């Protein structure tokens, strides 16, 4: 009798989180914080330095204003070139993505071996920074838009295939059951059951990748792949921050417009 009561008391909770969870949370917190402290040491981060730098930061930002509106006339042609590169790269990588993401999605491709191989390959591509891709392809193909496009294709393929295969893994598998139950083969099942479900994401991810490509081409310009990146580099070297700001504003509008289109398209097909 006494024993039972003791047990009851033991069970009676003292706090609303389990002691186990509390211990785990504390541990994780300590690890994260310790790593952070160590990295501030490694990266010589000093908060006072940062605070002291504030006035200068504002002063420098001040140099970006007012943007030089006239510079737009120079930005547009470069932007168009960037657009060409981004459009081609996005289109090609979007097409290339389809087989890759189907192979990489665990619920669609149940063959462990091909699945793992695809994932491994995609992971490798994704680890390579865009600037290295650009540099290597410029080394091979010489200066120009072509190496830039190839670099962007690789770069976006990694991102897109990953995003899409993750989405594929979250689709509603029930309709596929229904297709299979009525005797449809794999291709039919994908076409009728999978495609309609991921089409909106497919489109919006493609636009997202397009946006990333526009931004990545800023980096590509640095290594001679043309487009707005080249302008950015030049104007920074001339200390023409008003022109740089104009460039950024143009990029900003491009990003906003793409986002707007993307949300419109999503609304139209969701």
């Amino acid at each position, binding site marked *: 009798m006494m024993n039972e009561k003791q047990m009851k008391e033991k069970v009676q909770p003292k706090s609303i989180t389990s002691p186990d969870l509390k211990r785990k949370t504390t541990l994780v917190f300590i690890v994260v914080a310790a790593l*952070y402290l160590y990295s501030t040491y490694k990266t010589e981060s000093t908060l006072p330095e940062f605070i002291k*730098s504030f006035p200068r930061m504002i002063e420098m930002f001040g140099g970006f204003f007012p943007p030089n509106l006239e510079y737009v006339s120079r930005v547009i042609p470069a932007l168009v070139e960037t657009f060409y590169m981004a459009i081609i790269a996005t*289109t090609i990588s979007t097409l290339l993505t389809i087989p890759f993401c189907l192979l990489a999605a665990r619920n669609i491709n149940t063959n462990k071996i091909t699945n793992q191989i695809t994932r491994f390959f995609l992971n490798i591509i*994704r680890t390579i920074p865009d600037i290295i891709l650009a540099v290597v392809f410029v*080394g091979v193909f010489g200066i120009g838009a072509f190496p830039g496009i190839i670099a962007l294709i690789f770069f976006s393929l990694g991102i897109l295939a990953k995003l899409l295969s993750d989405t594929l893994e979250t689709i509603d598998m029930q309709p596929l059951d229904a297709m299979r139950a009525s005797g449809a083969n794999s291709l039919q099942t994908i076409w009728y059951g999978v495609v309609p479900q991921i089409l909106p994401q497919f489109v919006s991810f493609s636009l997202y990748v397009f946006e990333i490509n526009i931004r990545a081409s800023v980096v590509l310009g640095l290594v001679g792949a043309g487009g707005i990146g080249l302008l950015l580099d030049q104007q920074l070297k001339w200390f023409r921050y008003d022109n740089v700001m104009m460039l950024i504003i143009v990029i900003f509008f491009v*990003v906003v417009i793409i986002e707007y289109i993307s949300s419109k398209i999503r609304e139209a097909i969701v």
Partner: protein
Amino acid sequence: MRYELPPKKKISTSKKLKYTTIAIAIIAIFFVTFTQININWERIFSDRTINNFSRVIPQLFSPDWSTFGKVMEKMVETVFIAYAGALMASIIAVPMAFLAARNMFRFRIISSLGKWLLDAVRAFPELVFAIIFVATVGPGPFAGVLAIAINSTGMLGKLYSEVIESIDMKVVEAMEANGANKTQVFFYGILPQVIPEFLSYAIYRFEVDVRASSVLGIVGAGGIGFLITIAVANRNWDEVGMILLVIIIVVTIIDYISSFIRKRLV
């Protein structure tokens, strides 16, 4: 057996017009793009390319191990820059995200402003931030940390706000139904729903930042990017190969660790 056929689907002419216009516009864009882009195909498929190929690629695949030490050192620095930057961003992005999420404030204008602010931050190339921070806190990895932090804030803020927009508002309703106030609803109804995704995105961002910080070295903001630029300028492709190898291995390890952690989170 013959069956009656269904009526044809009705599409209004205005819709038809709209779709045709869009289709034509898209085709036009592609047409212009592919005809206007300046690519010299002959040049690309020339002996030169083959020469270059055999000059660059074999070296890339025979990494220069003598540089391993310094590459590794810079890579470690890169990882720490990314870590500190991503962590800062993952915290600053939280309030920004709530500001930008459509379902958190009654007034649409707040979320629109929030979204615009995040877009504006994202429009700034990392390199520009890096220059500003090198100028203000001096050259060194700290400038890189700040550049990464502010840039990631833009991206994470956007991702977070999408998470917030997708939460189960019924739970919020249930909290409201038992008399909880806004703050309490936030801590009991909203946070538990979003925290795992937030963490997961933050970790994902950390992975991305490891790659992103490779640009910072160009302006002296630390990290491996500097080695890349110098090696390429000197055409030391075997050193580039070494850098590539180290990046792939380190990032892959981080990927595995982080996907392991993320799996346990959700």
